[in-house]
């Protein structure tokens, strides 16, 4: 079987998938980073892995999208476009994949249509496969993305978000797939987006089988999470029932909430007679070996609680939101209340709010509401703006049933019917004056922004400007390995730090003394390429260093 290479037209990709005599694997490096390392896996590590990953023969490498675009600029200080550009140079063949939240793009709220189109257009220059979903499975929320991906000649991979419960029938999902096909036409890959790793192997097998019966030519891509430790079971069932592509991750970095290990998937299915034909097992093993030693430096971002969570079937939190939820519980000092929140309140809220899909941004609404219900005393007494918008139908209609009246009343007030009548319905966001935004950005950064800078600014205005300023001050820091960039504690006096800058020039920094004067100002002496340099820090900087609140990395 021939490998599907980057640059192949969507129709040809679909044809090759239809004719393939084995199954394919997507390496979901981004989802692994997001689910098990709070999205902090650095470009440096991905670059170490790039050569072996390129040889491994994946259908695609999911390396951008989800919360990563935001975390790239906010915490990793890397330009998400430059990241793709650099990786592309090292990985000329492998298709790059993104995860796009439809109208919510890579953020948490709906964007204007012209911003969506502009953003997709810019990213589509680097991204070959577009996995797009809407947490309400409301197809119109994805339409603009579908259209722009099509225009760019890239592969559309619309999702049906999957969950469990009496309403989540195959009949319902088949209806959704038809809605998608009515909009996109047949040259797509269909993704079953099992962001929580929900359901049993049997359940997934049945769903895939039913889709296969009705749409025999539609390539199915199964996406799962290993939160309960059983995703290999679901993956196997999916492939046995006709899924063409499945998701997995590099073993040495697999944890608890992200993808299952690639090699385990390959070995299990091989024994069952299914061939991952384009996969080079040696390269898969090599990838894990190359990056294994880097994992220790990401220690601080791994989950506070170790072990699989079969109870995900109850609370249904998506893998991408597990780590950050637990982190919030630790920081908020309510880790002891997690059993109540996760196993009692979450399923209750879920049911009360219509049993929609617990995935960004809907999962944040469920989580925040459950935490508030437990922490705040009165249930729904302290509703977030996002919950309000959900009830108003801003994100789309409830898929199965509406919440009960008392919840509307609690959240929208006693005149909730009037409020609903006046403000309700899918938000019709008017287009943004992008040219004007460009001028504002130019003013803020003091130079004419590139289209890519403008895209980042339109996603996250303040964080993007902060990032541009950071880059001007500190340079291209993606060259620093996690052992430096995520270093815990100060360096040793006399320690030598070597790195290669983005132009390929090697540099050497030797750590000298730090001297604090009577005003509390600290001078850090570094010897940079044999030149003495002094960096001074105001007294308040040391304390103010932990400035930004940690509220991202959700899914």
């Amino acid at each position, binding site marked *: 079987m021939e490998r599907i290479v980057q640059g192949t037209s969507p129709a040809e990709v679909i044809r090759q998938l239809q004719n393939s005599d084995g199954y394919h694997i997507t390496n979901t490096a981004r989802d692994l980073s997001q689910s098990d390392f709070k999205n902090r896996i650095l470009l440096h590590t991905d670059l170490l892995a790039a050569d072996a990953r390129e040889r491994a023969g994946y259908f695609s490498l999911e390396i951008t999208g989800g919360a990563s675009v935001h975390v790239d600029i906010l915490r990793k200080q890397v330009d998400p476009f430059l990241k793709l550009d650099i990786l592309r140079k090292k990985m000329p063949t492998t298709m790059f994949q993104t995860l796009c939240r439809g109208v919510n793009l890579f953020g948490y709220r709906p964007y204007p249509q012209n911003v969506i189109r502009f953003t997709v257009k810019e990213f589509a220059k680097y991204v070959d496969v577009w996995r797009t979903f809407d947490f309400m499975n409301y197809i119109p929320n994805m339409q603009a993305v579908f259209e722009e991906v099509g225009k760019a000649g890239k592969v559309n991979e619309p999702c049906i978000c999957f969950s469990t419960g009496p309403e989540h029938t195959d009949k319902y999902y088949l209806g959704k797939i038809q809605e998608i096909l009515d909009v996109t036409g047949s040259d797509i890959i269909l993704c079953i987006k099992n962001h929580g790793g929900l359901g049993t192997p049997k359940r997934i097998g049945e769903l895939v089988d039913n889709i296969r019966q009705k749409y025999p030519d539609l390539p199915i891509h199964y996406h799962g999470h290993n939160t309960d430790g059983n995703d290999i079971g679901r993956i196997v069932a999916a492939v046995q029932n006709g899924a063409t592509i499945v998701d997995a991750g590099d073993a040495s970095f697999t944890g608890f909430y992200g993808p299952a290990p690639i090699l385990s998937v390959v070995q299990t299915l091989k024994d069952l007679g299914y061939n991952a034909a384009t996969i080079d097992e040696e390269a898969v093993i090599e990838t894990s070996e190359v990056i294994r030693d880097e994992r220790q430096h990401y220690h601080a971002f791994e989950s506070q609680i170790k072990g699989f969570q079969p109870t995900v079937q109850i609370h249904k939190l998506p893998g991408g939101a597990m780590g950050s939820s637990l982190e919030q519980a630790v920081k908020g000092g309510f880790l002891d209340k997690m059993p109540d929140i996760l196993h009692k309140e979450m399923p209750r809220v879920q049911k009360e709010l219509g049993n929609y899909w617990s995935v960004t941004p809907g999962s944040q609404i469920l989580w925040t509401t459950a935490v508030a219900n437990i922490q705040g005393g009165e249930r729904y007494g302290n509703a977030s703006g996002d919950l309000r918008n959900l009830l108003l139908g801003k994100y789309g209609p409830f898929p199965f049933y509406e919440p009960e009246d008392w919840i509307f009343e609690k959240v929208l007030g006693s005149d909730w019917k009037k409020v609903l009548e006046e403000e309700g319905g899918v938000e019709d966001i008017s287009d943004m004056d992008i040219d004007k935004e460009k001028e504002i950005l130019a003013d803020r950064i003091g130079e004419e922004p590139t289209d890519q800078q403008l895209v980042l600014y339109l996603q996250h205005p303040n964080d993007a400007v902060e990032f541009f300023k950071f880059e001007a001050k500190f340079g291209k820091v993606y060259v620093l390995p996690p052992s430096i960039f995520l*270093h815990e504690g100060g360096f040793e006096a006399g320690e030598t730090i070597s790195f290669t800058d983005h132009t390929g020039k090697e540099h050497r920094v030797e750590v000298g003394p730090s001297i604090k004067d009577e005003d509390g100002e*600290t001078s850090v002496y570094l010897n*940079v390429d044999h030149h003495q340099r002094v960096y001074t820090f105001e007294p308040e900087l040391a304390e103010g260093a932990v400035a930004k609140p940690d509220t991202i990395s959700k899914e």
Partner: protein
Amino acid sequence: MKTKILVANRGEIAIRLIRAIQELNYEAVAVYESPDKESRHIRIADEAVWLGNGPRCDYLNIDKIINAAKKSGAVAIHPGYGFLAENPDFVKACEDEGIIFIGPSSEVVSNLGNKVIARQIMADADIPMVPGTENLSPGDDGVKEALAFAATYKYPVMLKATSGGGGRGIRLIESDDQMKSEIPVARAEAKAAFNDESVYLEKVVIEPKHVEVQIMADKEGTTVHLGTRDCSIQRRNQKLIEIAPSMISDKKLLDTICETAVKAAKAANYFNAGTVEFLIDKDFNYYFMEINTRVQVEHTVTEMITGIDIVRTQIKLAMGKKLSFCQDDIKMRGHAIEMRINAEDPKADFMPEGGKTVSVYRSPGGYGVRLDGFVYQGFTIPEVYDSLLVKMTVHGFSWNETVDRLRRCLQNFVIAGPKTTIPFYLNIVKDPDFVKGDFDTSYLDKHPELFDYEDNANEASKLANLIAEIHHCGHNPYAA
């Protein structure tokens, strides 16, 4: 009391002059304007006179300079280059006050500063010249003369301000329509810039080499040359890189040019150091351009290959000494290249980077390396003067050795704070045409790729800044 000489200049050339003055066992009197109060030339001088707040107007103020000389008891003034160096009124004022002007007489400065008179002197001495006009008549008559000239010699032609110089007041004209519209503009501009609205025309020599000859003459009229320099690598008629001797392989031609330069100097009754500039076309025809009556920025390359201290010689000649060497004593050895390291951003059309502080200054050294600079670590570059930080001149036995040395020095030269021309020059010394010695005045236009470099001079210190933050905070505050 030691004899004092006043240095009527600033920056690197002031320091260059002060060094020569002090080596001759005289005392150097510096002058300065307020924006230069941290300048190194003041600290090196034996005394310094504050002229005023400036900027520039006080360095250009003849009365103030003369007064400074009188007040300090200086018997002579060295003007350097720029500012008052070629202002005949200043030379005249020195002569009137009995102060020795280190340079030619006011009459020579005046004659050679007037392009039309200069051309007449050279024409009378049969010096080959680019075809050109006299001063154009005022009004429409001048335009008619211009159109007639263009009809005879064909476009393009240069429209030049008679009192211009140093690349200023020059326009390229390519059509009759342009001629008609540009002449009034050029006149107005010349009037504003030089207080003289006269303009004239010259035929354009396409993609010439710019070759000049250093000459020295004593008061008895003994005139020698110190060989050629090639100053072809220019941007908008401003020299960036200068080389001695010229890389033209026809030595006989170069000898002829040098002899012509001596003849031209004699025709002008030239005294002291000067430079005779020529253009050389593709067929190796050479044309007289002008005589600069000052010490040139690029005099260093000639000093390196001849071993003659031009500034020292200038002072001795002005103090009444005869030339202590004759033409046969002057030997050229090897090659020298000077690069003007400017605080400019070559990528932004050489936008000056004044106002920035030099946070790191690490200069190269070693065999065959000479630096004429004035900035130091911690120095804030004044915004109101030119952007030259340091001239780096290297000398080598062969051309290849010289280029190798230059490359090594550029790689070792670290200036952080302002953007500089260093990364741009690094591209030049790696360019095959430059390495072959193949360049003319169109060099930069024909090599746009030279501007393609990364501004990574500061990249290491930027990244080190983050390392310092991580070290100081005990974690990376930008990754938390």
